[in-house]
Structures are given as structure tokens and as C-alpha cells.
């Protein structure tokens, strides 16, 4: 049980690099893994770690996100002695503002945290795929008497410049931090999961709020400021599966990772469940003409064609003679007969007409398709044919 600790979940991100996937949809609400949304992993971590109070800070296009998390019932976060609270930006008599950066979002909710009078505050975000026991992070934080503990993981060197990179002493104490460095000197990346001693963080948030030159960001401002003052900051080494699904490529990869047999991240792990807001729909129907291998298929699907290495969300229909390969099909997608799809991500309720062929090669980024872009693709396909026959 994680006591004396309030979880603050940053769920307002626009997720620009996810392109069409986050059109009118907050990044944490993007469908993931056949029936989940990205935020389910963090929320489930909170429940599985025994967090009692979680504040979810929403901002960008929150309709779908709010509808999804509802009152937190699906995660058991609607209990009398523990609860989830949605914290949206607001105005009051003397003004108010949108959340201007991650640190500002926490600062604007200082009163919410103070209500629970915690010793520690856990800052997490709703756009990473991983299963972590925050209790262990808190244990280490207490043991080292740290002001801040940052969860870290080694990443591939060529990706290191996408992350906040840490340098630590042998005992794990952080002595240097570089946010998205051009030439990283280490590959130890911050996972964006921070445990703070609330009293210390609060004073830094106040200082930061008064600094008009600050971008009010944990990575850019708060962490460097704390380091500058020689606060006790330690790295927490995480060894499990973790993926920042910030780009279409990494989103697609993380989905494909779920198909892996020996992955540390398992949806079937009974001791560490991933919860989601589940709908009441019938089990999938696999027709005589179907072939399904190496895939995740959710309830309500009706499969008559061939599906390989793919993730199908609820109520997806695949017509006879169609082949779906290395693709992700969001809820309600209908694929007509004799369609070929390879390395594509099809958005909710898109109808793909019979005979369509869309195949993206392995060296390109997977293509995100919705009804609108499909018309565009079709138009170019038809034009190609016209040119061919003219």
C-alpha cells in the first residue's frame, strides 16, 4: 500500500508526433493493445501499487478521455477511502489559465495535493506503456532520504536524444541531467516518472511559477533547478518493459510487442492486471474461411479473412479473401472482401471498401488511415490506374 503519497497523472498532452492518431483525441485516450487506451497502463499501475489518491490532469480534447475514465470504476478507483479526481484547468476570481507545462499543471493543483497532506507526490504521465510497482520506487525514495527520485532506463544510443538523459554516481545519486541533449554522454533515460518529497517540490514549484522566463517543465526547469541546488536526487533503475509511445512508429512497435511470447509486459498476468473500461459485447466469431495467427483479437470481431501479426480492437469485421498483416485496426473498422492491408493503422469506424490494397514497406513509417484519408488514397490509386491505361 502506497500511503502518504498522492499520484498526479499528466494526461493533457496533445501528442503532436502521433499525427492523425491524436486528431480530436488526447494522447492518453488513443486506443492501444486491442481493448485498452494508453492511459489504462498508468491507471492500472496506480491501482496495482495500492495508490489511494490519483489526480488526473486533463486538457487537450478531453471528451473521449473523460468518457473513458468516467468515475474511475473500471480501475476500482471510485472507493470511499481512495479515489480518482479529474483535474481540468479552470479559472477563478483572480484569473486562471490553461496548464502551461507539466510543472505548472501540478502547481495549479497545489490545493488538491495539500488536501490529502501527503509526504510524497508521484508525478507520472498517461502516455507510456509499462507495468511498474510504484511502491518499490517509494521504498527506495524513503531509504535514500531523497528529495526527488527519477525512474530511469537505458535506451538505445541513437534514441537517447529524444529523452532526458541522467548521469549518476555509483550509489545512484544524480549529478547531471540533460533534457533531450543533441550529443548524449549517457544512455540512461528519464522515464518521466518522478517521486518527490512534497515539501521540497512545493517550494520549487512556487519559485518556478514566479519565474517568467521558465517554461514550467519538469525536465527543463524543475529538475535542473533542484540539481543546481544540490538536492538529494537519485535514480531508480527500472528493469521491466517500458515504451514511450510518442510517435507513430513507436506506437506501432509497442502494439506489435504485445504479440511477443516472452515479453515482460503481459496482458495475461493475473497478478498485475491491466484494467480498462469494458463494453458488453459478444465474443468474436471466427468463420470457416478465417485464418488467424500471431494476433490479438477483441470481442465483437467477425473474421472471415486472414489475419496475421495484427491487433484488432472490438467490433472489427474482416471480409472473405482479405489479408490483414502487421496492422492495427481500431474499434468498429470494417474491411470489405479481398482487401490487403499491411503495416497500417486504421482509425475507429473506418470502412475499407472491397478490393482495396494498401501496403507500407518495412522501411517506412506505418500509415495511419481514417475515412477521410482513405478517400484521398483511393483517389490516387484510381489516378494511377488511369495513367496506366491511358
Amino acid at each position: 500500500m502506497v500511503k502518504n503519497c498522492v499520484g498526479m497523472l499528466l494526461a493533457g498532452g496533445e501528442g503532436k508526433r502521433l499525427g492523425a492518431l491524436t486528431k480530436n483525441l488526447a494522447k492518453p485516450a488513443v486506443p492501444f493493445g486491442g481493448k485498452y487506451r494508453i492511459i489504462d497502463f498508468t491507471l492500472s499501475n496506480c491501482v496495482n501499487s495500492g495508490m489511494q489518491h490519483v489526480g488526473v490532469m486533463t486538457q487537450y480534447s478531453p471528451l473521449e478521455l473523460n468518457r473513458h475514465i468516467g468515475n474511475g470504476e473500471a480501475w476500482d478507483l471510485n472507493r470511499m477511502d481512495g479515489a480518482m479526481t479529474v483535474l481540468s484547468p479552470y479559472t477563478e476570481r483572480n484569473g486562471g489559465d490553461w496548464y502551461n507545462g507539466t510543472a505548472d499543471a501540478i502547481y495549479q493543483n497545489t490545493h488538491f495535493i495539500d488536501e490529502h497532506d501527503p509526504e510524497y507526490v508521484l508525478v507520472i504521465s498517461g502516455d507510456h506503456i509499462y507495468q511498474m510497482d510504484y511502491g518499490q520506487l517509494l521504498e527506495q525514495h524513503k531509504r535514500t532520504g531523497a528529495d526527488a527520485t527519477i525512474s530511469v532506463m537505458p535506451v538505445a544510443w541513437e534514441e537517447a536524444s529524444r529523452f532526458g538523459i541522467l548521469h549518476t554516481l555509483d550509489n545512484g545519486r544524480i549529478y547531471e541531467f540533460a533534457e533531450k541533449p543533441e550529443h548524449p554522454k549517457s544512455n540512461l533515460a528519464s522515464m518521466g516518472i518522478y517521486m518527490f518529497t512534497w515539501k521540497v517540490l512545493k517550494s520549487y514549484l512556487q519559485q518556478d511559477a514566479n519565474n517568467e522566463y521558465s517554461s514550467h517543465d519538469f525536465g527543463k526547469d524543475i529538475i535542473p533547478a533542484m540539481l543546481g541546488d544540490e538536492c538529494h536526487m537519485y535514480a531508480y533503475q527500472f528493469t521491466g518493459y517500458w515504451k514511450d509511445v510518442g510517435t507513430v512508429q513507436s506506437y506501432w512497435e509497442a502494439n506489435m510487442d504485445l504479440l511477443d511470447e516472452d515479453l515482460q509486459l503481459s496482458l495475461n498476468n493475473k497478478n498485475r492486471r491491466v484494467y480498462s473500461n469494458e463494453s458488453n459485447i459478444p465474443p468474436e466469431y471466427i468463420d470457416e474461411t478465417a485464418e488467424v495467427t500471431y494476433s490479438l483479437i477483441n470481442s465483437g470481431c467477425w473474421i472471415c479473412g486472414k489475419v496475421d501479426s495484427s491487433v484488432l480492437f472490438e467490433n472489427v469485421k474482416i471480409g472473405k479473401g482479405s489479408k490483414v498483416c502487421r496492422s492495427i485496426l481500431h474499434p468498429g473498422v470494417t474491411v470489405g472482401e479481398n482487401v490487403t492491408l499491411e503495416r497500417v493503422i486504421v482509425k475507429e469506424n473506418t470502412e475499407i471498401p472491397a478490393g482495396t490494397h494498401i501496403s507500407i514497406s518495412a522501411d517506412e513509417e506505418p500509415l495511419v488511415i481514417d475515412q477521410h484519408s482513405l478517400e484521398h488514397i483511393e483517389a490516387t490509386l484510381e489516378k494511377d490506374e488511369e495513367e496506366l491505361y491511358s
Partner: protein
Amino acid sequence: METMMGLINLGHEHHFFHELTYFRNGATIPFAGKYRLIDFPLSNMRNSDVEEIAIFVPNKYRSLMDHLGSGGDWGVGRRHGGLFILPPDWNDPSDISKGDLRFFHNNRDYFERGKSSYVLVSGSQFITNTDYHDAFIAHLQSGADVTLITTNIEELNKEHDSRFRIEADADGWVKDLTNDKQNSKLFTGVYIINKALLLELTDQCIAHHKDHFFVHGIKDNLQDLKVKTFENKGYGAFVDSIESFYRHNLNLLQADNYRALFYKKPFIRTKIGNEPPAKYRQHAQVKKSIVANGCVIEGNVEGSVLFRGVSVTEGATVKDSIIMQRCTIDSGVHLENVILDKDVHVTANQQLIGSKEKPYVIAKNRVL
């Protein structure tokens, strides 16, 4: 606006389920991958805008209470009204009622406090996806005391033997309820009755030491009551034995039947679980089957119904079988015409083969 209140009476149901009801009530027998029989009458009532539903349950009600909870998953979890599970727990020494009349007698409050003047009564063994709006309108317009919902069965067989057949005149007024085996117009066990009449018949039956509300209260009084019929169209099946359970599960593998029962709005609802999507591994071969979430399949599955969380290992074959929740089937196993109840583990290289007429049934929690 007139409304109906609901009653699911499990008091006098036919039970030929053997192993499947050792540990549970007949109404909670799992069906079609993730449902239980009770889900059908409950969803149909809710879809008929019935907002108060009582369930008379004579025994083994733990599984029923566990499954239904507060009724929220069916949309009947209300602060006022909603779902009432009414087990038999009464110790009135002066009570002389017998049979299911004890339920009516001891739960008079439910009917008296209810806001509706009409009651929709159902059992749990008629499987269909419908709403009773039209039947209710017809009931009100005809001025009938009771409206019996009927179904027309094209292919009559053994499971229908115990069902009442209806003889009605051209206008649909019921003349007789028989056991005439040639008559294909069957009573579904679902009927609409005026609440005042229900209470009156209850008193009358108890006074005459009767023990079966429908048989003694309605059937025996056909001459004095205005009883009408209303036909339920579309998919309908009676499930009251191992054989009919097996056959109707496998009938759903006919795409048209499955579509008619589950892909027609309003949907049948059930208790919400939290299982990941089914995982089909590298060597999985699945044909003509219904697969629920949480399954992990790397063997061969054909013509079968797999409930939630079933695991079929590589090299195992499951054919024309019904595998309930969380069963594990190890490699080299061959199952054909088999029903495995929940949590059965079939260890490597075994063969279990039943016949279409007599499927091989394994009770809950066994390791083979």
C-alpha cells in the same frame, strides 16, 4: 404511461443438466462464450423498459448473486427499484402456501410496492433476443387478463416435450394448453399479467392448497380468464438439458443464428469481466468457432465455443466442443463432442470423445 414490472421465476424450471448444476443454479449455466442463461430474460426485460425486476430463486443461489451483483451491468442497478434477488428465507409457522406460491406469498411486498400495474413473468430457459414492447401494447389493447408469449418451432424434438402447446382461436384467444406433440405453437414461459389478478390468483391458489402458480392459477382457470397469445418472432431456443445446452451452443456457430441472437440491437448484456483480447499464437488454427477474451490459443480449434480465459496449447485439438472459463488443454490432447465445465485441466496426450447425442461432460475443477 403504463409500465411493467418484472419477475424471473426459477421456481419450477425443468432441470436435466446433471454435472452442470452440481454447483450452480440452472439459470447461471454459462452459455455462448461469456453469457449465462439468466442474461437473456434479464436483458430482454431491461430492453422492454422494465425497471424493477425480482428473481425467485429456490436454491444454489450463490452463483446467481455473484453473477448479478447489483444489476449495474444490465442497467438495472438503481438507487430505487432495480434488481431484487429473493431467495427462500422465511419462517412463518402460519404460512400454508406450497411450491412457488410460497415465493409469491412471502414477497407480496415486491408487487404491492411496485409502481406498475402489469407484471412481465419469465423463466430462464427460453433463449432469445427481443423486447416485449409490442406484446405489452397488444396486451393493453386487447383488454386481456394474461398474454402468453409463444414461439413457433419448426423442428420439434425431445427438448420440447415438456413445454405447453397452445390452442387458440383465430383472434389469438387461448382455448387450451396441452401436451399435444404435433402442435408446434409452444408457450415460452414468458407472459404478461395484470398485477391485481396476479395477487388475486395467488390468494385463491393458496386457499386451495395449490403449489404451482402458472398451472393452477392460470392454466386451470382458462375458462374464466381472458388469455391471449403473442408470437415471438426470430431466433428462439429452449435450453433445459445437457443435450439441448450442447446443441444450442453449437447451433450458434451457424453465422445467421449468432448474428440474430447477439448482433441485433438491443444487445444481450452480461457481467462485465476484465480479460485481455484473445491471443492467437504462431501456430493457432481456428475455424468456425466462438472465442471469448482472455483465451490463449496455439492449437487447433474447430466448431467449438471457448469461454473466457481458456488456454489451448500447441498440438492440442478441440473439435465440436464447449470449453468453459479458464480451462487448460495441454499439448497432444484431442477433444471431440466434449463439454468441459469451468477450471478443468486436461493434461497432455489424452483423448476425450463423446457423441453428438451424448456429449462427454466433465464437472467443474477437475484435473484429468
